[in-house]
Structure formats: C-alpha cells, structure tokens
C-alpha cells in the first residue's frame, strides 16, 4: 500500500516536471533547461517503476533497457543533423511498436483467467494495438522514404483509396471479433498484422514536402496509443503523457496544414502533384522555360554590394549539407557591412522547424531567422534574395494560378526582392513537378550546381573582391 502511494507521488512529480519542461521549450534561451527537466521527470518515473515491477521479470527488463537504451543513445549521437527527421521518425515508430506489443501481451494475460475482458480494457487493448501498429509501420515507411532507401515521391496506383478502405474495414472487423470475445487466439495478432499493412499503405502516397506533416501526425498517433495503453493498464502517468504528446502533435500538424493552406485530408489523401487526374500537375512539358543563368562572379558582385541579403533555405540546403557554407558566406558578407537575414517558410524541409535546426547547427544566431510573416514585408527592401534549394515555397503560382496544385499556399514573396538568385541543381522541377514561374521573371537568375559547391565558390569570389 505504501509502495502504491509512494508510486503515485512520484508520478505526480514526474508529470509536473514534464509539463514544466515543455513550458520551458517556448524560448530558445530556456529550451535546454526544459529538456533537462523532462529528462529528470522520466528518470524519476523509470526508477520508481523499476522498483515496483522488478520482481521476477528484472532480468528481462534489464536486458531490454540496456539493449534499447544503448541502441537509442548510440544512434542519437551518431546521426547527422541533416538526417534528424528520419531519426525522430524511427524513435516515434519504436514507441508505437512498444504500445502495440504491450497490448498484445496484455491481451493474453487478461484473457488467461476465466473472467474474460472488461469492456473498457478490451476496447483500449484493441485501439492501442491498432494505432500503435499503424504508427510503427507508418514511421518505418517514413524513415525509408527520408533515408532515400525508398523512392521519396508519392507512390500511387489506381484504386489506392479503395484498397486502403478495404484494409481499414478488415481491421474494424477483426477488432469487433476480438472484442466479442469469441475469436480464436490468433485473431489479435492478425489484427495487428493488418494494422501494420495499413500503416505502410497510408504513408506510401505521401511524399516530399508533406513529410513534416506526416511525421508530426505519426507522433501524435503514438501519443494517442500510449494514452490508450494507460487505460488498459490503469496507469494515469501513461494517460497524461500520451495526451500531452497527442495534443501537441495534433496542434503541430494543424499548424503546418495551415501554413500550406491545405486541409489535412488533402495532405493525407491528395498525393500532392501526383494522381489527381484532372490537375495539369506534372504539366508544362511544353519545352524548357526561358531562364537566365548567372555566373558565380556576377552573383558575388551582386551580393557584395548589396545592402540587405535575404537567404531563403529549403530542402536542397539540407540535402547538400550546405548550412556551414551558407553561414561562412553570410559571415563574409557581414564583414563587408551587408545585412544578412534568413527567411524560413514553415514547411521548408522535411520536419517542422527543420531549417532552423540546421542553421542553428551552423551557429546562425536565431534572431536572424525570420518567420514567413516577418520576412515577407522585408522582401521589397531586399536587394538580393538568395534561394538555396527551395522551390515550391517560393512559387508565385500559388498566388494567382488557380489550376496549380499549390494554389492558395502562402509563400515567401522572394519575387518582390530587387534581385533573386536561385541556387539549384538543375532545371528539373520540384518534387511536385510544378513549374515555377519565378524562374522566368526578369529579376531572377539561376546559378546551377550543387548548393554547397556553389555557396563555397560564392564565398571565395566575395572574398577575392
């Protein structure tokens, strides 16, 4: 009895620490303290749980914690900053998988006695198994796409939504069967198996710029699965933590949907720029666009004698790992008295805030990073907008071409700057296959090549002036 009371007190302290920790994440100055507080909460909760559950199972618990902890920490310390989105996806998948496995084991434990399942426990087991499995498989597919093991573009085929609907129906059917308590022992694992298939199928048609939305959504799925697992285990700590994460993941997902001005259903089922049929999405195969190319020296002169330069990074910067080079160029320009700022679109990159993390890694001070709302009023007074590997988020077609798949998405108004320089690998259109009329504008020039190499050449050229 005393042990349970003590346990409850420890849980209370842990919860307070988690909420305080999240609260401190609201400013870069305190963010680290926030993470430390959350870690402390987790450590306290884990020690208390270990003390309460050790008993006969301690060997297996120790084995799992040591192996899993070692893998987790090793991977976290080794991963490159540019690979962060897929790493977060993997950890998220691990959590979802754990929730599904817990439900699986609990199902056999609870049905082992003659009493059968309590309805609440039964529903919780089934839901957390399904959601956890969907999150696990979805995260793995997201990881494979981001790691480019698998094709990153949306994968679509005719009748895709029909197939998904059938699979979802099968899950519902199996779930009801399990709930009624008359199903054979294999029904529960079968249900998890089908849920794994659904998770994979559901992420397949989503690609490219929609990945941040999916990762955030999967994060909230795992939170939900964990909260429901709290109901089956009668554990309020799991409920609270799961709900916190579920709420935050949902909020982030909605924020990003807003940033793209697309409803979530469109992100999940729209397969941006693919399928769609009626959209002339991949269109404009009508020959090459008329674009002007600039030489490195031209651009260097333009930059060096500018008053204000706005750097607009995109996924291309992450792929080329050009953030350090970008910072070096910015330093070079600043030493000549040029004001350098960065305009960050909310969905640039493959994770919410992806560009901010990369630039922070390169020691760019965070006050120089402007949100879309702060950056757009500054473009008309910007001499050079330097677009590094960003495409769709700068596409003016979003403003007025109603047939464009990205019509209505708020964009960075780079075209309003006096000059626009676009660093790009080739004239190939972005992942969505949408032509960008920006490139044909009279104030725009292209500088082709690998982003990192181009930026390094620019830095050298500016230095030589």
């Amino acid at each position, binding site marked *: 009895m005393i042990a349970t009371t003590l346990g409850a007190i420890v849980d209370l302290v842990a919860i307070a620490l988690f909420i305080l*920790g*999240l*609260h401190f994440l609201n400013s870069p100055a305190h*963010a680290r303290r926030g*993470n430390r507080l959350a*870690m402390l909460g987790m450590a306290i909760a*884990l020690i208390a*749980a270990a003390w309460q*559950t*050790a008993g006969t*199972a301690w060997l*297996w618990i120790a*084995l*799992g*914690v*040591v*192996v*899993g902890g070692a*893998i*987790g920490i090793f991977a*976290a*310390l080794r991963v490159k900053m540019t690979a*962060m989105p897929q790493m*977060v996806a*993997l950890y998220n998948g691990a*959590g979802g*998988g*754990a*929730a599904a*496995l817990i439900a699986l*084991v*609990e199902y*056999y*434990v609870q049905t082992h006695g003659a009493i059968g399942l309590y309805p*609440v426990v039964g529903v919780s087991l089934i839901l957390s198994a399904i959601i956890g499995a969907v999150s696990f498989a979805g995260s793995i597919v997201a990881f494979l796409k981001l790691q480019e093991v698998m094709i990153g573009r949306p994968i679509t085929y005719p009748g895709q939504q029909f197939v998904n609907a059938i699979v979802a129906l099968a899950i519902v059917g199996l779930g009801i069967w399990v709930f009624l308590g008359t199903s054979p022992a294999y029904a529960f694992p079968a249900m998890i198996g089908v849920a794994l298939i659904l998770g994979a199928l559901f992420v397949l048609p989503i690609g490219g710029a929609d990945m941040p939305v999916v990762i955030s959504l999967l*994060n909230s799925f*795992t939170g939900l699965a*964990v*909260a429901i697992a709290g109901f089956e*285990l009668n*554990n309020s*700590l*799991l*409920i*609270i*933590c799961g*709900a916190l994460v*579920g709420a935050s993941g949902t*909020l*982030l997902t909605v924020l990003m949907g807003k940033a793209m001005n697309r409803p979530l259903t469109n992100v999940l089922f729209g397969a941006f720029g693919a399928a769609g049929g009626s959209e002339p999405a991949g269109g404009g195969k009508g020959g090459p666009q008329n674009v002007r190319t600039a030489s490195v020296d031209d651009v260097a002169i333009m930059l060096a004698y500018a008053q204000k330069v706005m750097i607009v990074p995109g996924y291309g910067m992450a792929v080329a790992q050009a953030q350090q080079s970008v910072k070096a160029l910015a330093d070079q320009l*600043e030493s000549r008295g040029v004001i350098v700022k960065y305009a960050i679109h909310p969905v640039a990159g493959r*994770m*919410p*805030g*992806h560009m*901010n993390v990369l630039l922070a*890694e390169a020691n*760019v*001070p*965070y006050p120089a990073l402007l949100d879309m709302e702060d950056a757009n009023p500054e473009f008309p007074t910007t001499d050079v907008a330097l677009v590094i590997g960003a495409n769709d988020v700068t596409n003016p077609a979003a403003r007025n071409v109603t047939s464009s798949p990205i019509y209505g998405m708020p964009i960075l108004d780079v075209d309003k700057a006096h000059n626009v320089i676009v660093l790009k690998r080739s004239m190939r259109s972005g992942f969505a296959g949408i032509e960008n009329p920006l490139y044909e504008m009279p104030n725009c020039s292209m500088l082709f090549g690998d982003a990192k190499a181009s930026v390094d050449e620019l830095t050298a050229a500016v230095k030589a002036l």
Partner: protein
Amino acid sequence: MSDINALLGLLTILVLAIFVGFEVISKVPTTLHTPLMSATNAIHGIVLIGAMVTIAALFASGLHSPLLIGAATAAVTLGAINVFGGFAVTERMLQMFKGKDSKSK
C-alpha cells in the same frame, strides 16, 4: 459501479491533459518546433513504463510462453530506444541552439 467511477476519473485526467498539452505547446515558436517534436517524442517513451508493468504482469499471470516473454521484452527494448534516443537527440539539437554567437560582430 466503482469501475465506472474509475473510468470517469481517468477520462477526466485525459481531457485535462489534452488541454494542458494544447496550452503549453501553442506558445512554442516555429524556431523550436523540431526540438519540441523531438522532446514530445521522447516523452511518449513513457510507454517503457507500460512495458515494464506488462512484463511483470505476464510473469505474475503464470503464463510461461516464451513467445509472450519475447514480445514483452521487445516492447521494453523499443520503449527504451524511444526514451533514451529521444532525449539524447533533443539534447543534441538544443545544444546547437545554445551555441550563442554573441552579438555577431
């Protein structure tokens, strides 16, 4: 009867926690969205505790299935990957934000 009350108690906790979640998170600036996602990702690693409770319950139930022990141990392992990896990655990201480039020239 008390089952219903217990369930209602848990549901109350759930709803309140959801509101707290929205409230706390809505104040986080875009700059910190990645670390935020990563930190919440680590917090749902609390599922590790669920896995520990489950494996203990499995042993207490007298079910001696190697398959189930394997599944429960896998759950603990995955939970541990989630917790330790999640916090380590978040810490690494935030370290970079800390690297104040004091009043750049």
